[in-house]
């Protein structure tokens, strides 16, 4: 009898000991790392969101905090899609959806919002990452070695609203299969209403002057991009592949807030090798 | 060869023993659930001295289950006299309603044994999908018949079967 209670109390204390009581500070802020090379691995965070989704402002806030932490190394695209992105009468009149966003949303089978993808990686077969795991997932891969360099140059003609974009891609390591390249346009700082249930972020239930950031507007070279090169076979390491595009900006878009985002990805599993962003007015 | 022979003898005898033990093995798996006082109850104790048994899975939120058990209760004394049948009603109410089962059962004045299977362990072991689910067992605990769902009047057919198990027909 005594032995049993002894064993029991030992077992209980083992469980008790496996507890981590965290002391302040609970939260880190400020820049980490900084840029060590001219070109580094960059990571794309896609935030699937909508203006009537009450939990989405918290996700946008977290994305912003990650951006503060990683600076240019983290690129964000906010994809407004699905039920919560529908214009549903005042004050939710904005339609921030896009053809390309709708297609991505259906390819990855996203039904819950907010949710996201980090470089379209799929640990354990799971593309969709819930918000609480974004930070961990980003930190897991952001220090991986760079697989390719990607350069964006733009020139914008104010009168015609014509935007010319050139992309230069150079792989540093061999990869199997033929990669794809995709170019999209995002617009920052769009003011609109947003449902919210987190009083530490803003008013509940509606923030009337919410700033929608990194909003996906359109694809320049198709909803899934195009092949990096026309010929068969694997990529040539060291070869620079050049692509030139041009697009006329929609009259509703504010040119000062427009960025071009380009990424190269694995055509078979969508995983992104490298991503780059350029604000067109820089 | 000698050790092998000994091994063989041991094997045969042990198999025999197993065989003898199991000739009366019932279809009821051994699962620890609880009685109405909250005490642990081994389902191996679902026995009735060789007389037939009814095992019925139910829950407080399941209307047809309550109707079935009310119908059983109405006839229970009479059935017991004629066939010696014993009824076990296993509630699969989970912790949202387990505490309400005992007052409900007492309030209703049900005479049969009521057991609590709060995490559906026994239900799963018996492979019960939907409730009400009622099993008829012979005196050795072998399942003779089982039935899902309850409609008014189904108790009469159940009782006909019980009489057959008891050897009255």
């Amino acid at each position: 009898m005594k032995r049993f209670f002894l064993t029991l109390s030992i077992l209980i204390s083992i469980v008790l000991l496996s507890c981590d009581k965290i002391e302040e500070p609970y939260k880190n802020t400020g820049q980490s790392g900084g840029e060590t090379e001219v070109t580094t691995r960059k990571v794309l965070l896609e935030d699937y969101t909508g203006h009537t989704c009450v939990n989405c402002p918290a996700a946008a806030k977290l994305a912003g905090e990650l951006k503060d932490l990683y600076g240019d190394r983290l690129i964000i695209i906010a994809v407004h899609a699905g039920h919560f992105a529908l214009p549903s009468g005042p004050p939710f009149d904005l339609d921030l959806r896009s053809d390309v966003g709708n297609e991505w949303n259906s390819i990855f089978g996203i039904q819950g919002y907010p949710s996201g993808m980090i470089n379209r990686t799929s640990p354990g077969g799971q593309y969709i990452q819930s918000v609480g795991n974004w930070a961990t997932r980003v930190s897991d891969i952001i220090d991986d070695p760079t697989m390719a360099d990607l350069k964006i140059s733009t020139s914008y003609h104010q009168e015609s609203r014509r935007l010319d974009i050139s992309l230069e891609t150079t792989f540093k390591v061999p990869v199997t299969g033929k990669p794809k390249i995709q170019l999209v346009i995002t617009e920052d700082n769009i003011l609109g209403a947003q449902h919210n249930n987190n009083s530490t972020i803003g008013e509940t239930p509606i923030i009337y002057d919410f700033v929608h950031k990194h909003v996906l507007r359109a694809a320049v070279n198709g909803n899934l991009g195009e092949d990096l090169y026309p010929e068969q076979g694997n990529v040539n390491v060291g070869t620079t592949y050049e692509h030139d595009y041009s697009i006329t900006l929609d009259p509703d878009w504010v040119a000062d807030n427009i960025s071009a985002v380009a990424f190269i990805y694995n055509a078979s599993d969508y995983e992104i090798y490298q991503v780059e962003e350029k604000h067109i007015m820089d | 060869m000698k050790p092998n022979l000994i091994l063989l003898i041991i094997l045969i005898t042990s198999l025999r023993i197993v065989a003898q033990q199991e000739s009366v093995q019932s279809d009821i798996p051994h699962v620890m659930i609880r009685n109405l006082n909250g005490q642990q109850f081994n389902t191996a104790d679902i026995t009735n001295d060789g007389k037939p048994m009814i095992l019925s899975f139910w829950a407080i939120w399941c209307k047809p289950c309550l109707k079935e058990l009310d119908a059983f209760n109405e006839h229970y004394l009479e059935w017991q006299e004629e066939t010696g049948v014993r009824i076990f009603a296993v509630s699969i109410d989970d912790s949202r309603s387990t505490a309400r089962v005992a007052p409900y059962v007492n309030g209703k004045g049900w005479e049969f044994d009521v057991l609590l299977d709060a995490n559906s362990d026994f239900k799963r072991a018996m492979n019960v999908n939907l409730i009400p689910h009622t099993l008829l067992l012979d005196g050795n605990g072998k399942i003779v018949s089982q039935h899902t769902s309850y409609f008014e009047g189904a108790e009469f057919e159940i009782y006909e079967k019980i009489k057959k198990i008891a050897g009255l027909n």
Partner: protein
Amino acid sequence: MPSILFYVVLTAQNPIDNARINGSFQIDAQFYQPDEGIGITDSVIAGRKVGINGYGNIIYSQGNFSGGIRYEAYLGPIAGFDAQHEGNGIANLWASYQTSMIEITAGNFYEQFGNGLILRAYEEWALGYDNSLNGMRIVFRPISGLTIKGVYGTQRFYWQKFERNNRGIVRGLDAEFDLNELISPLQSSGTRVQLGASAVSKYQRDADPIFNLPENVGAFAGRLNITKGKFSLMTEYSHKINDPSILNNFIYKDGHAVLSSLSYSERGFGVILQLKRVDNMYYKSDRGTTSNALDISFIPPINRTHSYSLTGKYPYATQPNGEMGMQFQLNYRLPRGSKLGGQYGTNIAINFSQVNDIKRNPINDTTEINQDGTLGYKSGFFDMSDHIFFRDFNVEIDKRFSTKWKAVIQYMNLYYDIATIEGKTGYEPVKANIALADITWRMTSRKSIRLELQSLFTSQDKGDWAAAMLEYTIAPRWFFTISDQYNYGNPDKDSQNHYYTASLGYTREATRLALTFGRQAEGVVCVGGVCRVVPASSGIMFTLTTNF
């Protein structure tokens, strides 16, 4: 030698004969068709005209050994199930060895410590909920009256395989003492006392660049059950250390949950009072997930579970971030032959429950309540907010008039904070009155007709509803029903829809087949504390279930 052994196995057939195999199968299928009237267009169906969920479960047992396998296929999942269900394969595989003293299980298993406040692994097919543990469990009963359980494993997350660090690891210990068994003088006592204690810890690594997260989060619980004659007291307290997660907005406050109930019952009379307080008690094995999955703890809602379509239209779901609630129920049977009881007696049930939010006070002058990366808020044990989540007062009278006629009537008054419970932020709370009658006419000993009439009155959400259902049954095999739910009070005139259905079912032994044609209104289905939103649909539903 091997040939001799083979011969022995062949001849000693008795043990093989005594092996037992039992199993069950179920298929739920829905065939969808567009129905403009209730907003189901081709684009809503999006080519997915059929949804089928199915499983097969087989258990093999022989002597002290048992093992089981469970196959599931959701191709594709029926409407309302999370898209992550889509897939097929072996969901559970386990083996177990059991004696009266020890029981060891390896593989997938289900478990509950006490009321489940800090650990409950369970499965609810109708909801698509399964948080089974994949690991090992030992149950040890060294002496009569003492049970010790130890478990460790990872939880099921749809079809996603556990890989290093993709979700947490759970381990737990539970001990239960039955004092009447342990202490021999108490064996014959009329007072039955059980004590229990449990501890659970989850491990999930911290690689978060923003928050400094606890990798091991412990939770503890103690419980006491006393039964003395007609009285019964059950209480459990649980406590959890800092567990910042997406669901509590990454606050570092400790959490707790208390559940208590006191009841008195005698023949024809039962009364029960239940109390509950929950504060910051989400406990999941992945701090990042918002899915309805991976819960380690189970905080039961204690309000009455309603079984009729309109009384069950607005079901409460526990708010693990904080709530204080009570539930009171009285069951009384007016005796046979009394003036009100009539010839057959009359049952009356009165039930009241209310759940409020807890009151949260700032931790200091500069920090907002529930600010991430802080202790969040302070809330004393009796700090209750006047924000009501849910209130339900209902009376049910159940009376038999003759051998052929009986009826149930029920009235319910409801307050339902739809913004909190269903996440429809900005919506007004639903205040509703519901009345119903359920009349059964037993035509012959096997044939009966049942009529259900219900009415729901509210000026919020979708407005008034009326429902009628007529059921004809031939025991023990057949049933036929026709029903209609009519949303005549919908403020949007175009949405004043009828949801009519016709069903039939056939049951033989343990095989049941049911077919339903018609429309299903959008609704919330809750079983055992978890709720699932079922979208409106139209078409044919088919269920086949069997076991052996």
